[in-house]
């Protein structure tokens, strides 16, 4: 019990715990849509892309680096969406080009000019130190925004995730919903970046959702389970990070991965099969659809 209560005496840990729990919940919540849409690689790419913007903007206006990185991430997300839809370049290739180039730019800028915000290592792997009140407020606002977005767009989101072509024909503005989801995803990555870290955010988008898929056959319950698993990973990961003195992001992801291993080990074949089918999502028909 003391092991749980002892770190709570420190304000920095309490703030870290709050942010880690909220980050895990937010990424777990949004991750359901990302995983079911087969967009896991986009989450991975976007977090790297945001790192580029993060490094570039702070050179010119360090106080606005979060805003700049956010705009950079949203622009990258929309660029990926547009390039993969309107050209012969596949989504994977579009993500590979746009986001890795952005990440490389970030690394180069960090190496050449250093950082006036978080350190290079903290940006990559996350840290519980130096969390500001603004970051807590920002994460809370983004979380509330994400919940409101999913609440009011729930049916259209589920329909366009399951069957984008029929959703489109049925009056759902699929392109708009996808663009809005990309914006929410970018904001979520940005808001959780300081605790989870650029390189590990994608894992927290994927792991809770995959675990949740093995636990339930209902979309609503998957959303709830994924949020719970994300929150639990964030909270437990913070404690382990504190005692092991390693970056918070690594431990949060490792706790999530451990949960995955346990659930996978105890899940029957049919439950495992559910997670195996996660990437057999339905793509909307692109402009260059094959002729039938």
């Amino acid at each position: 019990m003391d092991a749980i209560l002892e770190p709570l005496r420190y304000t920095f840990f309490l703030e870290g715990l709050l942010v880690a729990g909220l980050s895990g919940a937010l990424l777990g919540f949004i991750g359901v849509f990302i995983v079911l849409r087969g967009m896991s690689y986009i989450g991975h790419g976007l977090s790297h892309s945001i790192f580029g913007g993060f490094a570039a903007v702070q050179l010119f206006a360090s106080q606005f680096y979060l805003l700049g990185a956010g705009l950079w991430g949203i622009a990258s997300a929309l660029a990926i969406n547009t390039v993969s839809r309107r050209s012969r370049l596949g989504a994977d290739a579009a993500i590979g080009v746009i986001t890795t180039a952005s990440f490389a730019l970030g690394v180069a800028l960090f190496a050449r000019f250093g950082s006036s915000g978080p350190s290079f290592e903290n940006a990559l792997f996350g840290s519980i130190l130096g969390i500001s009140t603004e970051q807590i407020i920002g994460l809370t606002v983004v979380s509330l925004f994400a919940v409101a977005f999913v609440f009011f767009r729930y049916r259209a989101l589920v329909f366009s995730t399951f069957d984008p072509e029929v959703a489109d024909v049925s009056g759902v503005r699929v392109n708009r919903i996808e663009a809005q989801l990309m914006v929410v995803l970018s904001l979520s990555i940005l808001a959780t970046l300081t605790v989870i870290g650029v390189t590990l955010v994608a894992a927290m988008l994927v792991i809770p959702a995959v675990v949740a898929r093995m636990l339930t056959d209902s979309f609503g319950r998957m959303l709830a389970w994924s949020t719970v698993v994300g929150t639990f990973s964030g909270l437990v990961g913070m404690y382990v990070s504190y005692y092991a003195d390693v970056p918070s992001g690594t431990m949060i992801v490792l706790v999530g991965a451990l949960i995955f291993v346990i659930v996978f080990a105890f899940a029957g074949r049919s439950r495992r099969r559910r997670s195996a089918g996660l990437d057999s999502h339905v793509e909307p028909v692109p402009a260059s659809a094959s002729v039938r």
Partner: protein
Amino acid sequence: MTATGVGPELIRLSDVEAGYDHEVVLHDVNLHVHEDQFTGIVGPSGSGKTTLLRLLLGIVKPMAGAVQKQPGLRIAYVPQLETVNWDFPITVFECVLMSGSRGRHFTVPWASNAEKANAHAVLERLGINTLADRQIRNLSGGQQQRMFLARALYRKPQLLLLDEPTSGVDVSTRHDVLHLLADLHEDGVAIVLTTHDLNGMAAHLPHLICVNHRVIADGTPAEVIRPAVLEQTFGARMEVLEHLGMRVVVDERPEHAMKWTQ
């Protein structure tokens, strides 16, 4: 070319060219879809029959010509079963309800009592209300097709479009689907579907359109299922036999096969 039909016109395609990435797949399509229509679009793979269906849906835009739809036309679409992610975490009931989504309006996630009653009524009509809480993976081929028909009917469509509704299903399911579609047509729903199944599906429909990058022929099965039309459509010689008043298409035996049987 004008499809048969005497009811009010729902969609009109005038001198339409359509395709993808500047490659024209369909040429010179003139087609009227009427309120009382029950039509099968037949043609070989790559002939543009799905493109024609997508033109009617509005997913594919014409490169030339015009597609005119009746204002406020309610269209529902049933995709091919093979294209669906059956591991998606939803039940039959949730699948039907989702077609009530309206992109321009904010809605609460849960369904109203009226929406639930409507969904149950549609499932009841299709004989699968007892499966409402079942995950979609745990359905037979026929039940899956009925579920998508229920989702389409939930929208109370005037026009129902189906892409290969009997592809990959067994004979019994094919009969079920055919009877179900005939019942819906009786109830006043216009139906247009694509099929490559000449004997099992097309021959049973009241109206056919043969497509091979352009409309080769349209009319009743008796008018369309003829060797000359089929050869023009499919690029292969076929024989047409009569059986109990139905047209049955068989591949013409190649010469070497005839030698083997002698």
